[in-house]
């Protein structure tokens, strides 16, 4: 069958899709977007997390056909997605906030402590890591690098998509909020502490910008 859907803001078409293929398979093997990872194929690990019409889903559990006509955001499009969102919010602010998302600085992000300050100081730039030109990163991507939340990195794409969505909904999360929101994403390397640091850091930087 043929499947049409929007991926990272661009319309995509896949032909000869077998009915049993998952959204994850079509993204990885037919659309050249291997950023979303396949680690369990049963929705337990969250490595394949993408946004489907804004909602985070395990793309391994979504049949490709279910994505027909819908909008998908993967880790490859996260930076652009975050940038567009930031622009929209800036526009909202300029026009006077009506969403309630702004101004809610609150006292969240508890437990940030010393490691957060350290991570702030380490702030990397896209250019630090590669040859060639700078790369625009979403705040959550930058925070994962700065906080040391990446080891093998296999869980990272799914965690980034999930964490970015959580911060969109809950700009000032408590530690318990972060743990609850990310409890569907397994990481085997880090023991999650640096991931907590990264999300706290992204939340703090986000509040500073508001």
């Amino acid at each position: 069958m043929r499947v049409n859907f929007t991926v990272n803001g661009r319309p995509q078409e896949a032909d000869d899709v077998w009915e049993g293929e998952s959204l994850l398979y079509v993204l990885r093997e037919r659309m050249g977007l291997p950023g979303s990872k396949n680690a369990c194929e049963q929705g337990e690990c969250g490595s394949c997390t993408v946004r489907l019409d804004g909602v985070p889903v395990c793309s391994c559990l979504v049949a490709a056909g279910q994505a027909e006509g819908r909008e998908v955001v993967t880790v490859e499009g996260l930076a652009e997605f975050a940038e567009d969102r930031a622009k929209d919010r800036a526009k909202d602010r300029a026009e006077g906030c009506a969403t309630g998302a702004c101004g809610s600085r609150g006292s969240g992000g508890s437990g940030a402590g010393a490691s957060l300050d350290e991570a702030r100081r380490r702030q990397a730039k896209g250019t630090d890591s590669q040859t060639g030109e700078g790369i625009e990163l979403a705040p959550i991507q930058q925070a994962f690098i700065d906080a040391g939340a990446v080891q093998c990195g296999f869980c990272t794409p799914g965690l980034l998509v999930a964490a970015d969505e959580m911060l969109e909904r809950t700009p000032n999360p408590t530690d318990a909020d972060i743990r609850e929101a990310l409890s569907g994403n397994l990481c085997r390397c880090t023991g999650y502490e640096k991931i907590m640091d990264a999300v706290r850091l992204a939340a703090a930087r986000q509040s500073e910008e508001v």
Partner: protein
Amino acid sequence: MAANGAPTTITQGSRTRGGVGESTLRPDGTLKVTGEFAYSSDMWHEDMLWGQILRSTVAHAEIVSIDTGEALATPGVYAVMTYDDLPTDVRTYGLEIQDTPVLAHGRVRHHGEPVAIVAADHPETARRAAAKIKVEYRELPVITDEASATAPDAVLVHENRDDHHIGHVPHPNIVHRQPILRGDADAAAARADVIVKGEYYFGMQDQAFLGPESGLAVPAEDGGVDLYIATQWLHSDLRQIAPVLGLPEDKVRMTLSGVGGAFGGREDLSMQIHACLLAIRTGKPVKIVYNRFESFFGHVHRHPARLSYEHGATRDGKLTHLRCRIVLDGGAYASASPAVVGNASSLAVGPYVVEDVDIEALALYSNNPPCGAMRGFGAVQACFAYEAQMDKVAKELGMDPVEFRRINAMEQGTLMPTGQPVDSPAPVAELLRRVKAMPMPPERQWESSEGADVRQLPGGLSNTTHGEGVVRGVGYAVGIKNVGFSEGFDDYSTAKVRMEVVGGVPVATVHTAMAEVGQGGVTVHAQIARTELGVTQVTINPADTRVGSAGSTSASRQTYVTGGAVKNACELVREKVLEIGRRKFGSYHPAWATAELLLEGGKVVTDGGEVLTDLADVLEDEAVEVEEEWRHRPTEAFDLRTGQGNGHVQYSFAAHRAVVEVDTELGLVKVVELACAQDVGKALNPLSVVGQIQGGTTQGLGIAIMEEIVVDPKTAKVRNPSFTDYLLPTILDTPTIPVDVLELADDHAPYGLRGIGEAPTLSSTPAVLAAIRNATGLTLDRTPVRPEHLTGTA
């Protein structure tokens, strides 16, 4: 013909100096957060096929027949291969003992053993075709434990053994046995005021790296093959792959692709040979990716173990002796079992002074899943038992468990039970003191003005308690792990370092075959090059077999050994650069001949800080390159009868304090905090060091309360090969992990560093168990602890 998605060269530049001791960031970080980092499962090649492995559905059977006809006739299938299709007489492989069949020959010895392989144009076609292969089995009785392995009528798992252990094992179903005898345990026992015995069981743990076994084999025009693969040791793979293919090693060109974690599970081969066989047979690139179910069968696990311990102590709290017996189940094939036995026996006493010991460790052959390397490697199982014993003895003596450990703690100069002196800092008592001194997490931290936050209680979002029936417990443990390959192994690494001027800027290039599996070796290599060569720009080349072996990314050894090789190669490059400088500029300034010269900030400077010249002027268009092997000091084999010998390179120590809350009615455990203190010698990258400690600690938590591969004792079949049934700690299961890093230099090691990756995986588990015992008053002699063990319904 380069495969799409093959690793690209990484260059790291930094405005800061970024040398040894700084928390520089990963050079592959940006690629990993943007989804562009190419893992082995992301490899893609025009016209590639997908490989699939058919595995045995029974644990122990004769293969009566295999019918591949229907599979071969399936449209889209390009090849089906069985044992009979193997190209040479070399049809087995193995890390130490070549006992593992590439494809089963007449018999399968464990559930999930590879029997046939298929290549097709779609992964689902390959899966379905493999399912059409008809294998007729005649089942054999299964060997599942020591009693069935050594019974008089036991079937031999491997007949006609000719490996180098068969001469000293008491039964052919025992892979290797290592006694450690020192002093006189009987006489010492007679002096003891108390004698404490314990029988312990340690469950089978899975590495559960998230990136499944996978790779891409591309046939080459010269009859060779290019293999892009996730592994822990390229050259060990190569040594095992090439003879099976009938190719010289230089025609099997291996490149490390992105590795999604390892933890020991990638020391043995998985799909490497199968992909190469299918690629050569079909003349097309072949990719194989295991799914999670297959991954549980596709790599070895941590050995389950039965441990019998007896300690004695005097009233004043001094240990008198240790008698212990550790039986590890190695499963159907040897894998790393002999080395795991060496570790379990030589580290069985723990980080304590016990002069009179009678220790025996052995590994069985059985029809259970093969077991081998996993983070902690034999030392983990022993630590679980000796730390349980320390608490028991302390209780028997009416002493505080930490004080009792302090009294018996080893220190620099202590003799191991192998007779080896511990000749670098061994701050066991200090680590315990530090971990105990950390502030305690607040009581009833789940209480808030809005009532109980169930996310912080046992049972979590299942909302099983709001604090009723919940009791807190605190437990301590400390452990000792060896660093590097032991027992006389030639444990070298190789580094190639090049220095040249590019665009007016001096650049160093580091090329090793080290497997970066997430640990951050690539970060550290760049730091070492900056420190040694005074450059800011360092390029880390992809790891491949065009450079000499780096040894394995295991045994906490890579920063020590490949880090040491990079340091050594940099020093040799520096000497050559200075020689060029002396030749060109020596006559202009006397310091070239008289002063100690350094490379700093792209310049040649004296140790007094005087700048002599720019590196760019020294090198001009010349490049300096060195490839050199590097070795740590040698070790010796353990005597097969007494276990005496200087078997280990270095020791590593960590201590944990666990705070748990237990819902005693439902048997649910919430680990509230898991604090760790570890001596790292020198933290080359403090951020990565803490990350390793927290990750290792969490894997220890997993085996304490949730992780276990359950094998049916009647059929030897695996019952929970999925992430639905094999439970890993989530972010909700994992507590805060405060880390106190101690840096006491080991003068024998580069920069004084100590291998760090494994030690935190040892003491984490017994600390959690001790805390649960403290909360509940239960004995708990097995791990993982499940609810039924806490509610008396097991």
